[in-house]
């Protein structure tokens, strides 16, 4: 069998070698006109128009009742978040201050509802972290309710470790990712 195969291969090679090589085809060069220079444009550029700069409107702070207003008035990092220690869900004094101001603001705008989103850092398994981040969101909701916000205005959602705000794998990044975000929903302006 092996011998037969070799014979076959040799036969094919011989056949290939017997084919005549085609003559090379020589092409005549195509005639090309000499390039003719194009004259430069003669029209002059239009004069530059001078426009008076508008007078800046002084910043009067965020619009009352807007998300910006909420973030501006509730302190902390100014992003609506409070932060937690590793594997913990209790609120620090700083967090309580931020949440008191959030509650105060929410009490001024009674038609605003919010989703409280709990987050965990990446150093935990997925399902455990979903439960841990849910606890964090619930801590925040309970505190806001204790400050007078109607529980029906607050929905809690756990994102576990699915929504990090910092992709790093170091203490500073993990600390940022262990948080709860008070996210305004219907009723807020702007």
């Amino acid at each position, binding site marked *: 069998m092996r011998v037969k195969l070799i014979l076959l291969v040799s036969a094919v090679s011989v056949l290939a070698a017997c084919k005549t090589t085609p003559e090379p085809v020589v092409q005549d060069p195509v005639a090309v006109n000499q390039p003719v220079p194009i004259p430069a444009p003669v029209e002059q550029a239009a004069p530059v128009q001078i426009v008076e700069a508008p007078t800046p409107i002084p910043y009067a702070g965020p619009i009352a009742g807007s998300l910006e207003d909420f973030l501006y008035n509730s302190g902390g990092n100014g992003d609506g978040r409070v932060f937690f220690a590793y594997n913990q869900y209790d609120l620090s004094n700083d967090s309580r201050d931020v949440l008191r101001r959030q509650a105060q603001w929410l009490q001024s705008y009674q038609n605003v509802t919010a989703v409280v989103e709990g987050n965990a850092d*990446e150093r935990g398994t*997925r*399902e455990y972290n*979903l*439960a841990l981040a*849910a606890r964090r969101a619930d801590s925040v909701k309970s505190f806001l309710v204790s400050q007078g916000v109607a529980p029906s205005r607050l929905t*809690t959602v756990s994102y576990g470790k*699915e929504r990090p705000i910092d992709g790093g*794998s170091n203490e500073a990044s993990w600390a940022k990712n262990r948080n709860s975000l008070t996210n305004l929903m219907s009723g807020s302006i702007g």
Partner: protein
Amino acid sequence: MTRHIKLFIASFLFLLSGFQPAIAQLNIDITQGNLDPVPIAIPDFLSADMQGRDIGAKIAEVVRADLERSGIFKSLSPSSFLETQTNIDYKPTFADWRVIKAEALVSGRVVVEDPSRIRVEYRLWDITAGEQLSGIRFGTAPNQWRRIAHKVSDSIYKKLTGEEGYFDSRIVFVDEQGPKTNRRKRLAIMDQDSANTQYLQSGADIVLTPRFSPNSQTITYMSYENIVPQVYVLDIETGRRELLGNFPGMTFSPRFSPDGKSMILSLMKKGNSDLYLMDLTSRSTSRLTTSPSIDVSGSFSPEGQKIVFNSDRGGSPQLYVMSARGGDAKRISFGKGRYSAPVWSPRGDKIAFVRSKDGKFAIGVMNSDGSGERILTESYLDESPTWSPNGRVVIFSRETRGARGKSELWSVDLTGQNLRKVLTPGGASDPAWSPLLP
């Protein structure tokens, strides 16, 4: 002891089939670590026509890759083969295979019966003893050749190790795209050998933790398509999808019971998660845990009598076992560190878990009573273990550090040997291995 029983059964079968019992029959004990892979020769399957030869070459390639990946076999290079068989119904020239140190030979054939049907046959030869160990025939449609290849691998694996194989199976997982801070996730499914990847969703919402039902046709998973995330059930073939139950809070960490008739999941109420059991026919639920703590990641024992789960009721996350009807739970993890994500082996004797300690996450196994703990692999973040259908291999996900970190799937043997990357088109997490396909 088990080895003696196995040998006895083998001899008995051979007497029945008219063979003399082999004196030195090829029998691989895969319960030991550091096993020398058994050299096996698998030439392309023969065929009388072009289409059959093409399929035969592809089948042999898949079988070689399956067995090689198991770590138990070393697939010899076809370029080293001395004998070219022309008919698998004749004995091979054993001496030619001994020269290249093959201990087993698989010679196969593909017969194209008509355009819609092929017949695949193979014979497994013990080269040392010089005798046939098995000869099996499969019939199928030509486009199903890959399934047949995996079935051939399973049947060789079973004949030589005495244990069920795991090659004709699938893996459902979460496909991941984008950086950690903006990661898109969608459900995907592929064959056990990474072939035939299909996406089950567009990826508009975050989806997590898919798991197979015992029939391999239905999966359960958690999705963020509504504000409050919930558990869903999806039929893979029809695409029919259903929200499971009408719970007041987040439902997560779902898993089917071994008979497929009920589901265990966690329900979040006022910051407290408890395990619930849902009967999938009547849709009635019963609460299994009542402690004011995190109770998640329930997983049934294969006979369905017990549940292992993750709880921090003792102050830190640990593993507990209780009756499938609830009641008292017994802690089984006592090593240093935090334990989570337990999964009961389909064989029933082991539980795989994640242990975090000193800033690292390890995949480990322990006996179902908590004894005999062993770490298989460890990195910055190993998690989500899932068992092969025969309980010999664990696939898990491994996330690397930093903003450019990526999640990938890896597999490792129960012995801690044979760590391999499982190929996926993009990033991948939360793998779940199906049972053997029917």
